[in-house]
């Protein structure tokens, strides 16, 4: 099936700065696509190209098979939540939100009713008469969101639309966006820094790094099978231990590290024997036992225990790997109660939970 939106080998530069380079990207009808990437990697730029606020310098941009480059911004059936909101400060909140309908010539009564509905949905029911300058940061962000969704376009571009909201409100908005997707069949291109949000909402995630797409896939796939060290540590936490590939037995490998031979699985392209590799194991996959004679695994000393709310992060160091801070994640349910800084522990993991990656170039 034809994708709704198709960016083909798109590049973009600002003066001498090459910001995007060979971006290939599709958005299917009714898909929730999230773009993740470090600050400054080019996420906003991708959105601005799609929205038509910047011209592309190379490649092509198609919507339902038609070239978009000749379509002016106002005729693209997209709406955008801008990273800096871009609210009209001379209009009230209600006027801002109703603007899309107003320019479509909808009757006043209809607009008023829809605006009231949407404002209710974003929790600003009573503030329609205010001006943006009289709103808090999170309230403004919600106005921006309301303004973009009210027209129910084919595709919504959202640039960190929930970043200024508290957890509860954010969860509520996430549910709302998902319901929109389900109810109206709208497609989403969504930028966020919140990985849980990305994983929870997205049908597919694209990770951008330095203007290129580094990996894409379903959230779980990306999380479980990162293909590069960057992805492994950018998306969620990961413990990376450098070593050389000693033996390969099907998927199962043995790696020689400074702390001895460790086991892992590999499911990407086969790696050369003796090549430099990284063993990646997620904090939540590490078992942690109080050290006792004859215990298996990596001996380590606990250097810090950090309470994060629902989770606890235990940091430990192995004497042979002084540079690697090994993180272990536990639920804050008292299961790590016996540990103290300085406790000696034994770290182990299921080889199938450890992934092998090519050492970063």
């Amino acid at each position, binding site marked *: 099936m034809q994708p709704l939106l198709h960016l083909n080998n798109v590049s973009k530069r600002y003066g001498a700065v090459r910001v995007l380079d060979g971006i290939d990207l599709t958005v299917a009808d009714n898909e929730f696509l999230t773009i993740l990437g470090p600050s400054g990697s080019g996420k906003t730029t991708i959105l601005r190209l799609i929205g*038509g*606020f*910047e*011209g592309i310098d190379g490649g092509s941009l198609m919507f339902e098979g038609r*070239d978009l*480059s*000749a*379509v002016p911004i106002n005729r693209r059936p997209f709406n955008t939540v801008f990273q800096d909101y871009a609210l009209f400060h001379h209009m009230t909140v209600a006027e801002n939100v109703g603007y899309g309908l107003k320019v479509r010539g909808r009757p006043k009564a209809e607009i008023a009713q829809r605006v009231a509905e949407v404002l209710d949905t974003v929790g600003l029911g009573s503030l329609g008469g205010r001006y943006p300058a009289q709103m808090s940061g999170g309230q403004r962000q919600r106005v921006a969101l309301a303004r973009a969704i009210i027209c129910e376009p084919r595709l919504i571009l959202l640039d960190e639309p929930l970043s200024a909201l508290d957890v509860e409100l954010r969860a509520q908005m996430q549910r709302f966006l998902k319901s929109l997707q389900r109810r109206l069949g709208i497609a989403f291109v969504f930028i966020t820094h919140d990985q849980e949000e990305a994983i929870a909402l997205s049908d597919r995630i694209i990770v951008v790094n330095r203007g290129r797409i580094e990996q894409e896939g379903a959230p779980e796939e990306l999380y479980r099978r990162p293909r590069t060290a960057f992805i492994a540590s950018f998306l969620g936490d990961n413990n990376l231990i450098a070593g050389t590939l000693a033996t390969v037995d099907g998927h199962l490998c043995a790696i020689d590290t400074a702390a001895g031979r460790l086991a892992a699985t590999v499911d990407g392209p086969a790696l050369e024997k003796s090549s430099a590799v990284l063993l990646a194991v997620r904090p939540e996959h590490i078992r942690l036992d109080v050290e006792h004679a004859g215990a298996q695994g990596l001996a380590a000393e606990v250097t810090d225990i950090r309470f994060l709310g629902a989770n606890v992060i235990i940091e430990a160091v192995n004497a042979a790997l002084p540079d690697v801070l090994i993180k272990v994640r536990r639920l804050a349910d008292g299961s790590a109660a016996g540990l103290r800084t300085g406790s000696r522990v034994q770290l182990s993991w299921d080889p199938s939970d450890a992934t092998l990656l090519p050492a970063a170039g």
Partner: protein
Amino acid sequence: MNTSRSGSRQDLLRAGLSHALNLGLPLLFVVMPILSFVMVSFWTLRDGQILLIPTLANYRAFFTEGSYLPVYLQTVGLSLQVTLVNVALSTAIALFIFRRPPRMRFLILMSFMLPLFMSYIIKVYSIRSILGQRGLLNEAMLGLGLIDQPIEALLFSRTAIFIALAVLYLPYAILPIYLALDRIPANYLAACADLGATPLQTLRDVVLPLGRPGIAAGAVFTFILTFGDFVTPQMVGGTQGFTFGRIVFSQFGLALNWPLGSALAVILLVTTLLAVALAGLSIRREHVR
């Protein structure tokens, strides 16, 4: 925004229309008349008749003959002085307005603009009657016993020209400067103070730089208007009130020396263009997204 690479027919048409209007109208109503007129500056005047013989004599006359160059320089100097003082005053006044509560600002601004609606000629007359040796100011001061002899230097002097021009053209500078200041985001001022800047430092580093386009516009307005004005200097300047604008004007009267007049006008034009260019240079590219 640069969206259309292969624009549709309609877009092309629209772009064409836009160029036609924006370049065509000024071409038709401004450039053509003026250019064809200014061409006269290259013709020869002989026995009161304009002959179509190309010459640079009219321009040469400016540099070599009689009083043109000195008067020109004097006038430039005068206009520069007035511009300087007026821009400084206007900036102060614009700042004063800017520092009032938002609701009052427009009204205060308007009270500074209002004098523009009173006829210029009447104002000059009025200024003269105020400043005269037996004018209102002297009479008032005499009446109050502040002085016992009328001050004579108030009128018919360079000072008088200066005062009159400054007063007449002040509003032209206040408006653009204020309009630029008005756009300064409130939180810039907060940020500035927060970082430890004194009010004066805030002024120097944020308010004035951001007001610069307006200040430049105000300076250009003032310079050009005062440079071209010859009525005021003549009326209040006494024997000092002779300016370049007057010389230009006089060529088109009974002197019937249109070629020289046009040449002098072109020189005046070049000067004012230069002023505009200078003002343009002082504005750095604004970085607003």
